[in-house]
């Protein structure tokens, strides 16, 4: 704790760092929930975060033990982990504790202790009176389109708007005269804190307590202060104004309850509340750490062993005429689809790349008032791609019309619409179909429209350029192809497949789309990339850079709907005649593979009877994307655990149960690690972010996740609350994570360890994830076939424990739980 005087400028950024950083739901992006602790080693961070905020940061011991009993945690691995971390001599002792020890964890945390004194000792329940008013006022100010009567003065900064309202209204929010006066003065936190708390060194603790009594709203304000662009109807908020307003509400409440002349908290309570004491290594956390590591490596060892058993050295054989190549997003949901495509078209080659296809751009849908960013969040795009020729059709639904909430309008509508509502409701329950309410992946970009890709000298006001020059296109495409290890052996047909999702009644819909496209479907990117690669000018420039595209090669873009398992191909009319029949044939294989994929996913869908035919199951899967009553249109990234970076041949003999992100990479093309550095820079934060958000939402769904979504209520279009007086909920709803096994992600890189070191040196931010243990990284030396595990101290060779990978070419997809690693081909 700082010894010096309270300093607002230093305190607020510290507070801001710890608050949840979740954007409004339309821009939902997965990120590490506990990003504030990322500078610390993972296990220490878990302990500190838990000690301070009371989060549960691991599964409970009973859950780990159940996993041990089920074989999900393998006994030999657990023993090995204990030996490694505790030394062989204390192994029996720790094993005993792990298996039989009784421990009572404590998730109370130190947060809130100081401010609770108001309730416990002074007997004033501030939360009960202050929170409803606070949430209502700030919610009404920020509202993006729920309320009909908007906040007066919403164009002004938050505090000004409140001031004006308070001045104008005949009866205000505040009652205490001095608070009314403070409101009109420039905000000075220490002044109010002096009155409320009194003791300078407690101010920061008090502000933390106050802000973390409702982390959802505090975090939203802090995020919007940093990135106001998330709001379509702009508002000006700052954490300081927000906290000042809340302090004034508290002061007002205390004035009301205690009358004039009450003493600040420091003068009312005897004992100074405990400071954040440095947490001692408590045994409980040690046990969780051991179990957690064992859980992770029980699975990872099987994967690594599977990789090593690959006897597929027949790369030479594969030369010659191959039907096609297909590039997919690295997304774990493409893992199984690629497996089925390879199975149906044995000669084809599939690749994985980040789903923005190396394009840094905004997309401007025709007629839209806003730009959509369609590249990874950290990237600052300099280009806009416009859509033209959309045949616009926006379905309306009167049920969302503001008039239905009015007196007369409601009177008319409830009489007229009422009967219609009954019919609609019956239909949507018994025969779900497309409705205006649903989110559809294909709506993002109109298939019949065109993309204006070429730069024509036009610039936006912000200095963004409309389109790319040919040189710029070639540069992006060069990076794309080289990044996945394609240099010159291109087949006649090359598919670029982005992905998106469709759902209805899903407030977290943005989290279902492509993370590399800032939570939008990847259709614009795949289509733009294919168009670029088909341009003769671009091909010419690429040839200069050493990538030769045969004239007979054609690129076809598509969008894979991961919920419905459908692929929509773009610009099929442009495909050269000779390739058409081949494309039609491949399309049929795609369709079959998609049905296979739907069948595999269906094992986790309770609404589907697995004895149905494949077609019927696929239809039922599609229906789920349109069903109002389906809280899980798809399982999204549940159970993600791996990210494989290397040649597809290295992994394609393995069944990984949709748990792996996959990025193609040719170690031979990258002796200096430059390509790998670029890959790691994007892939580690994106996949690691997804993985950790799932981890934390799973281990503590109450505090770090959003709880059950069944009772969620949309507030101001920016977030969800429970009931009407609740705080905004951040993280993932329980329905997204309840089958997720919380494993930190293992990155497997097929490359010599020294090159990996060189690559990571270029990207220290990505390296920190590995060094601090927020993700695991193992390099697989393609020559020596040895694994190297990376730690902060460097790398050590690693040999996975023998598990014996079962060979299974006819997997029965029936059980709900994750399946083990199988070898599915020689």
């Amino acid at each position, binding site marked *: 704790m700082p010894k010096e005087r309270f300093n607002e400028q230093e305190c607020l950024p510290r507070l801001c760092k710890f608050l949840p950083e979740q954007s409004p739901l*339309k821009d939902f992006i997965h990120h590490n929930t506990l990003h504030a602790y990322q500078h610390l080693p993972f296990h220490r961070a878990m302990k500190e975060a838990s000690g301070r905020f009371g989060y549960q940061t691991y599964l409970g011991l009973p859950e780990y033990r159940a996993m041990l009993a089920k074989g999900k945690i393998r006994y030999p691995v657990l023993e090995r982990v204990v030996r490694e971390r505790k030394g062989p001599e204390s192994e029996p002792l720790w094993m005993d504790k792990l298996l039989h020890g009784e421990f009572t*964890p404590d*998730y*109370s945390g130190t947060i809130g202790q100081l401010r609770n004194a108001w309730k416990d000792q002074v007997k004033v329940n501030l939360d009960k009176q202050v929170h409803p008013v606070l949430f*209502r006022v700030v*919610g*009404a100010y920020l509202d*993006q389109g729920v309320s*009909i*009567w*908007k906040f*007066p003065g919403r164009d002004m900064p938050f505090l000004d708007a409140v001031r004006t*309202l308070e001045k*104008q*209204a005949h*009866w205000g*929010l505040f009652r205490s005269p001095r608070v009314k006066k403070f409101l009109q003065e420039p905000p000075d936190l220490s002044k109010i804190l002096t009155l409320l708390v009194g003791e300078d060194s407690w101010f920061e603790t008090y502000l933390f307590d106050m802000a973390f*009594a*409702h*982390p959802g709203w505090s975090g939203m304000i802090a995020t919007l202060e940093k990135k106001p662009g998330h709001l*379509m109807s702009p508002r000006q908020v700052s954490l300081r104004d927000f906290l000042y307003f809340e302090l004034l509400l508290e002061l007002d409440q205390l004035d009301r309850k205690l009358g004039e002349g009450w003493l600040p908290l420091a003068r009312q309570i005897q004992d100074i509340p405990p400071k954040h004491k440095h947490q001692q290594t408590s045994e409980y956390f040690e046990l969780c750490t051991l179990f957690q590591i064992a859980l992770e490596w029980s699975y990872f060892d099987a994967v690594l062993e599977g990789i090593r058993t690959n006897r597929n050295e027949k790369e030479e054989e594969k030369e010659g005429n191959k039907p096609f190549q297909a590039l997919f997003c690295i997304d774990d949901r493409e893992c199984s689809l690629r497996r089925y495509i390879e199975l149906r078209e044995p000669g084809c080659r599939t690749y994985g790349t980040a789903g923005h296809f190396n394009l840094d751009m905004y997309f401007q849908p025709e007629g839209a*008032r806003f730009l959509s960013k369609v590249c990874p969040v950290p990237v600052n795009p300099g280009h806009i791609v416009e859509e033209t020729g959309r045949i616009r059709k926006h379905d309306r*639904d009167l*049920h*969302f019309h503001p008039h*239905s909430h*009015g*007196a007369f309008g*409601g*009177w008319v509508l*409830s009489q007229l619409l*009422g009967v219609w*509502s009954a019919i609609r409701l019956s239909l949507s329950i*018994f025969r779900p179909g497309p409705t205006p*309410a*649903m*989110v559809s992946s294909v709506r993002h970009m109109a298939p019949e429209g065109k993309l204006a890709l070429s730069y024509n000298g036009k610039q936006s006001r912000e200095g963004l350029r409309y389109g790319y020059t040919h040189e710029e296109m070639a540069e992006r495409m060069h990076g794309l192809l080289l990044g996945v290890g394609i240099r010159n052996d291109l087949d006649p047909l090359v598919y670029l497949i982005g992905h998106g999702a469709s759902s*209805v*009644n899903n*407030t977290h*819909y943005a989290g279902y789309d492509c993370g590399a496209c800032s939570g939008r479907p990847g259709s614009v990117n795949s289509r733009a990339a294919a168009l670029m690669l088909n341009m003769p000018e671009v091909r010419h420039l690429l040839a200069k850079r050493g990538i030769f595209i045969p004239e007979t090669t054609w690129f076809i873009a598509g969008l894979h709907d991961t919920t419905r398992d459908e692929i929509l191909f773009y610009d099929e009319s442009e495909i050269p005649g000779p390739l058409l029949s081949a494309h039609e044939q491949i399309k049929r294989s795609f369709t079959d593979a998609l049905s296979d994929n739907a069948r595999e996913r269906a094992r986790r869908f309770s*609404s589907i009877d697995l004895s149905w035919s494949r077609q019927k199951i696929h239809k039922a899967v599609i229906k789920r994307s349109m*069903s*109002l*009553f*389906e*809280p*899980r249109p798809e399982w999204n990234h549940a159970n993600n655990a791996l990210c494989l970076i290397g040649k597809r041949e290295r992994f394609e003999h393995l069944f990984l149960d949709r748990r792996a992100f996959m990025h193609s990479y040719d170690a031979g093309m990258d002796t200096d690690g430059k390509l790998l550095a670029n890959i790691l820079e994007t892939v580690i934060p994106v996949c690691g972010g997804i993985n950790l958000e799932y981890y934390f939402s799973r281990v503590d769904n*109450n505090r770090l996740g959003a709880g059950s979504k*069944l*009772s*969620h*209520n*949309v507030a101001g*279009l920016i977030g969800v*609350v*429970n*009931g009407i007086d609740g*705080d905004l*909920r951040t993280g993932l709803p329980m329905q997204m994570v309840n089958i997720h096994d919380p494993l930190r992600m293992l990155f497997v890189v097929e490359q010599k360890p020294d090159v990996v070191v060189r690559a990571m040196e270029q990207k220290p931010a990505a390296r920190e994830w590995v060094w601090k243990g927020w993700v695991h990284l193992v390099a697989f030396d393609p020559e020596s076939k040895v694994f190297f595990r990376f730690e902060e101290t460097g790398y050590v060779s690693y040999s996975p424990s023998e598990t014996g990978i079962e060979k299974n070419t006819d997997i029965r997809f029936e059980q709900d739980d994750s399946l083990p690693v199988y070898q599915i081909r020689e």
Partner: protein
Amino acid sequence: MMSSNYFIIGFVLIPLLGFLISLLIPANREKSLASLAFYLLALNGLALVAFSFWWLVSNPVPMNFREWSLYDSKEYTFVIDFYFDAVSCVYLLVGALISLLVVRFSRYYLHREPGYKRYFNTILFFYLAYNFTVLSGNFETLFAGWEMLGISSFLLIAFYRDRYLPVRNSLKVFSIYRIGDVGILLAMWGMHHLWHQNIFFSELVDSNAVSAHISKHVVFSSFIGLSILLAASAKSALVPFSSWLPRAMEGPTPSSAIFYGSLSVHFGLFLLMRTEHFWQHLDGLRWTIGVLGFFTAAIGFLVARVQVTVKSQIAYASITQIGIMVLELALGLEKLVLFHFAGNAFLRTYQLLVSPSIISYVIRDQTYHAEKEVRSNFFNSGRLACSYYLLALKEWNLEAFLNRVVFRNIKLIGRRLDFFTPMNVAFIVFPLYALGVWLLVNREQLPAEVLRYLPGLFAFFAMIMVFKSFSERRYPRLAWVMVVMAHFWVYLSISFNEMLTLQQSVLYLGGIISGGVLGLIALNLLRKREREFFDLNAYYGHYYEYPRLAALLFIAVLSVMGFPVSSTFLGEDLVFSHIHEDQYVLAIFNSIMYIVGGISLIRIFARLFWGPHIKTYHSRTLKSA
């Protein structure tokens, strides 16, 4: 007639059967639970459609079915009676369709939810209560259904019983429902005396007779009418009770849709329609109802416009329409009201069920269409507009108003009795009670003047005891015993009017004594294990560790508060029939005692067993979330 009786009984028995079977199905059998509910409701719905069709075609006149006489003696009868007319027909049809859809919806929506079974149990119980109330042919039957509705509502709002807000709000809604119940109790008592017997709704249809009779007792009839209006206002969230409706939206969305969007919230209106033939003869009352409807619509309209959460917006929009329906009813447009009710119920159900879609829908809309520039005018700028905006944002302070006027006063009175502790209570109350009994035994010797006031005095004691119980913060067992003892005071006070027979006494006190003892056992067991966390200052969430004790205490609560499974329910009614026509005060004291006593019992249960668990060895949700 005979066969139609089978149908009518079926509409109650089918849900009852469904509810009972659903209790027996293991919690992990999601499919069996959902299928049971769905097919029974579908069967019920088909039978209903067939019956309604037959009724419409053959002879659509109201029908009355005298089912079971639960208690029959010379001066007092308690009959379960069913009644079928256009109002019940529409309510039953709308209820059947919406419930069927919601059950189907929930089958998938609740998949993997830990409370799956509990949810379906409660929905089936609610549906039973719904049909029971809609079909009721007299006040006694209606009251039974009414109480069942209240409990199922309470259970569904607190579906997430490990969180703070749902539990607090369920208690709040339950309390307001109980305030409404005061109205029903008083109306029942009043009707009994007005007609010198328990009245059937079918008897109210004879307009001329009713009119003639009422004109002889205008004041007393108006009193009854106001009581009915109180009950209706609480149940249908009319002003000043409106603020409970949005706060009830704490359970899973489909349950909010069925309860607060559509069915439950229209019951106040139903009560007004059921008793329309009674109050339409009283012009003053008719005006009052109309004005109340108008104000509800106006305030609901203003508040709905500023809501930033979807569900509260729908709730206030619904309140607005219900206000208009009440106004329509006061104007005598009964057919329109029925149509309006059905439309509003369907509309709000659908709106609630698709409410999560609003983000993507409106965001897409805004992407392509500029927000309409609101030109500033008298209504949205200037001092008056700001004032009304703020007032609407604060829901016209209705919440604070109710707290101040009702609950805080009860607490203030109760706090005066803080000198009662478990140590001394026996020394104060028992001698006093002994004195009361002594007075009862020697009542012949007492002067008439004194005798006149004694029942009221003892009923007052009873009322004060439940106030004390309601405001008790430290001793749960004291609060419990106070409610039990209050019933004994009531018993004593009634005995001054006329002695209850042994059978009647058993009826009344049986449920209270057995429930009281059961509750004490449960409380003692809990105290023995959790001495540290055993008071009424906070929510302790003990159900997490003691689910069985929680169930035990809940049953005890139902028994003592005279829920329709306990004989005390009959007894309560019986007691009221013993209050003389001129004993307004006694009637009011007694009904307040029942109501506050019920609230207090539920409060003891909720504070001890529900809410975020006090122990921190597992993850819990923040209080604010």
